[in-house]
């Protein structure tokens, strides 16, 4: 009731995009859910990924239903990748279901006047981000996406935001002004390591006056033989202009990206549980959507990557690796007679269990 009253008071003052977010992007905190808020910013000199997650423990034999809060941050600047994944003590977490607001230890997420405000401190203060992210497109909320037997995930995406603020890495401060960015919010019941894999990419133009935003998603079984979801979504300015799905999409990867040194993985200790020097990261990824006279082609060239490692909760031995791959994107096509073309930064995320 309190949430509804607050929404009623706040909503008339907000833009249509912000009003819609207020009603859709709030924390669910339903028992048994895995839920996270994810933000990416593509600055000229720094790229940052932030993730605030609440995961109910589903590991058999562990404390039943124990919710674990984690704050993850990956940052890439001229010195390379750095990052951290911190478990936040239960007493240090304050997340109200029904609101876009969270305190994870010393870090905070708020949603004020239609803008996401993030103040994040990690790694004993060596990593800091203070960001204001203004949504630029109407959010999209998917139907439940299948993640293997019995598992499902809802996905709310705000694929284009404009970021202001700063990121500090061990004393190196990077200012961000009108940098393009992305936000999404996921929640659902599933087990890491179950019979699924997902590939997801966001491509954004660096210039604010280029209207296009492109998101590609493919969810398959773990062996990547059977496709559950395949989509290529194109926004023009703030509206979803064209969605290609299923058979209208073809994708392929070529080559393997071979890092010269062991890439960053958070948490670092997961190298002991999942060692190895072979990485399932392609050198190049191409996705093509075609139908009803429209065509859009996305090509992603891998630059480098970092990984988030999560122990499978579907088994006692395996690990799910989330490879966060920094790419250069090229987009070309024609939709409703209009040329679609831009180059820009992109993030490709591959979620594969081993």
């Amino acid at each position, binding site marked *: 009731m309190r949430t509804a009253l607050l929404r009623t008071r706040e909503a008339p003052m907000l833009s249509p995009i912000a009003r819609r977010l207020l009603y859709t992007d709030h924390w669910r905190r339903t028992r048994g859910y895995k839920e996270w808020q994810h933000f990416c910013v593509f600055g000229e000199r720094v790229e940052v990924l932030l993730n605030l997650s609440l995961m109910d*423990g589903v*590991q*058999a*034999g*562990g*404390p039943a239903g*124990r919710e*674990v809060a984690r704050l993850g941050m990956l940052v890439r600047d001229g010195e390379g990748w750095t990052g951290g994944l911190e*478990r936040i003590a239960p007493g240090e977490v304050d997340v109200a279901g029904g609101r876009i607001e969270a305190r994870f230890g010393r870090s905070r997420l708020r949603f004020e006047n239609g803008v996401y405000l993030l103040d994040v401190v990690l790694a004993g203060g060596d990593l800091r981000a203070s960001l204001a992210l203004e949504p630029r497109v109407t959010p999209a909320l998917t139907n439940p996406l299948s993640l293997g037997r019995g598992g499902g995930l809802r996905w709310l995406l705000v694929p284009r935001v404009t970021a202001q603020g700063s990121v500090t890495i061990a004393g190196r401060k990077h200012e961000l002004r009108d940098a393009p960015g992305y936000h999404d919010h996921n929640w659902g019941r599933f087990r890491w390591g179950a019979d699924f894999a997902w590939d997801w990419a966001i491509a954004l133009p660096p210039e604010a006056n280029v209207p296009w935003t492109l998101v590609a998603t493919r969810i398959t079984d773990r062996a990547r033989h059977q496709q559950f979801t395949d989509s290529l979504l194109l926004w023009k300015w703030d509206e979803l202009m064209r969605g290609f799905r299923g058979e209208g999409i073809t994708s392929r990867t070529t080559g393997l990206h071979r890092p010269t040194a*062991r890439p960053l*993985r958070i948490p*670092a*200790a*997961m*190298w*002991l*549980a999942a*060692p190895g020097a072979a990485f399932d990261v392609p050198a190049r990824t191409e996705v093509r959507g075609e139908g009803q006279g429209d065509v859009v082609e996305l090509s992603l060239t891998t630059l480098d990557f970092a990984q988030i490692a999560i*122990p499978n*909760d579907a088994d*006692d*031995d395996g690990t799910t690796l989330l490879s966060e791959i920094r790419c250069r994107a090229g987009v070309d096509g024609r939709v409703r007679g209009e040329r679609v073309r831009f180059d820009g930064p992109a993030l490709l995320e591959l979620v594969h269990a081993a």
Partner: protein
Amino acid sequence: MRRSEFGDFLERSLAILAREMPRSHARLCAAMRGRCVAFTVDGPPVLLSFAEGGSAVGPVAGAAPEIESALSKQTIFDLLDAEISLEEAVLSDRFLLRAPVRDLEVFFQALQLYLRGAVRCPSLPDLLEEYRRGDAAAAAAET
């Protein structure tokens, strides 16, 4: 008698594994049943032995372990912080191992079972932080 800081950590981590990941603990004990490992970590060696009922940590005291290992606490944390890989630690003699080949093979399988179980234990990060800070040494010295 002053207990070894590493011995205290090892014993408590195995207790956490047994409580929070009992399947992993049972598989570890089954894999190593009948074997003993001596660990020397910045102090007197401690013996980890596996029998029918589980595992026990204690002083070596005349035992003849099948597997002998030696590494520093610094190497343990360099491994955990990914400053060095397990292969690099072994090949550079920062993690010394001496055992018949068959026992070494079993030891590495058991180590993987322990590590993969440990990363799933909610309580282990706190114990690791305690060990990193040296709090475990103070606690061990008092016993």
